[in-house]
């Protein structure tokens, strides 16, 4: 067992893990963060996407020991005091999901994309979420949701900053 210190959704944790424990299993089974799901065995589907030290990663393809000293944000940590994150809200409003299994990963990947590119074209959204597979929606409404969220996030920022970096 190896001891790790990780901040997850704003809360510090000190835990013992086996080195072979995948980050996603640590989050789900040791911390109860079951909002992050596992959709494949091949690192393809992106359903497990979380942010590690500010970047979207596939938490099934990171060891929990590698998050030691780091900061993880999951789908459970992006709403502020009960108010949905603009990307969550847009997925809801634009029907960006059907069964919802891919949704936590889609939202976390989209937030990462919008941080880098606050106003993506349709093609840029499709390329930005190429690491996330959806078996239900056909992606159309997911793309609309991400663009709607981009608009809302730009609108809520001071005018001078709408084209600049935004977190």
């Amino acid at each position, binding site marked *: 067992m*190896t001891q790790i210190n990780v901040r997850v959704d704003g809360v510090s944790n000190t835990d013992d893990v*086996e*080195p*072979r*424990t*995948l980050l996603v*299993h640590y989050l789900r089974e040791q911390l109860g963060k079951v909002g992050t799901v596992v959709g494949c*065995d*091949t*690192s*393809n589907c*992106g359903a497990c*996407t979380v942010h590690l030290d500010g*970047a*979207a*990663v*596939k938490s*099934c*393809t*990171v*060891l929990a*020991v*590698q998050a030691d000293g780091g900061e993880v944000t999951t789908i459970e940590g992006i709403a502020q005091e009960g108010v949905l994150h603009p990307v969550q809200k847009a997925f809801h409003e634009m029907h960006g999901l059907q069964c919802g299994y891919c949704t936590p990963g889609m939202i976390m*990947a989209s937030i*990462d*994309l919008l941080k880098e590119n606050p106003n993506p074209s349709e093609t840029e959204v499709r390329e*930005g979420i*190429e*690491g*996330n*597979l959806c078996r239900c929606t056909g992606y159309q409404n997911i793309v609309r949701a991400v663009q709607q969220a981009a608009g809302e996030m730009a609108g809520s920022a001071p005018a001078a900053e709408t084209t600049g970096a935004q977190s």
Partner: protein
Amino acid sequence: MIPAPFAYARPTTVDEALQAIADGGEDVKIMAGGQSLIPVMRLRLAAPETVVDLSKVAELRGVRDDGDAIVIGAMTTHHDVLVDPLIAQHAPLIAEATETVADRQVRARGTFGGALAHADPAGDLPAVALALDAEFVIAGPGGARRTVPAADFFVDYLTTALEEGELLVEIRVPKLAGEWGMHYEKFNRVAQAWSIVAVAAAVRREDGQIAEARIGLTNMGPTPLRARAAEAALAGAAASADAIAAAAQSAAEGTSPSSDLNGQADYRRHLAQVLTRRAVTAAAGL
């Protein structure tokens, strides 16, 4: 699935890493970004006794200017390659190919050195390193270093010149003199970024002619290959659509592509010709 149990070491310097590799027992695996290794360990296709994780070895990250070459640390992530000004200036082919690798999550962790050390025939960066005549700086037990040219680094399917106990430290990419254009042309399925075939081209134009062309082929055999016959046909040829199309017909000479679910060998040979024509045309600025 989860990996089989292993002992885990997380060194912070190259010397510590070499020591951890030496101390790790019979079956040691070096982990860079883990984006190929962890999937393989999850499927239990690999079950190393010890994993030596390089993610905290800061000296292996980053790109520096070394006069006649740029030097890319093995642990520089695909993401960091994409935003690096030296690569953009001196080796845009690397950035162009890296942009097509996997997806943003994998690019956030996967590394330049890891992708080269892994030497997957369908991986995009080996053919680029070969086309640019990159050199591989390798550290061995005790810290001794040696340099291996790309032409000798890729030995066979998933096999490189890296010996047991050795570590890939950095990759030197010579700066090219003259007016070079570059292009990476890749053919893949939409939901899977891996190349079915891809072509890396760098072309130097002089007085309306192609003075020199370097062409790297992805997935046309167990290792990346240079399309030597096409390169020879292009040297001194007119920078015209006809001349390029004629030269590209020899792009598959000397290759030994595999047949798999994505395509038969003869289809891959056809793709190599078509993609070489497109890549060279774009690199020549036509």
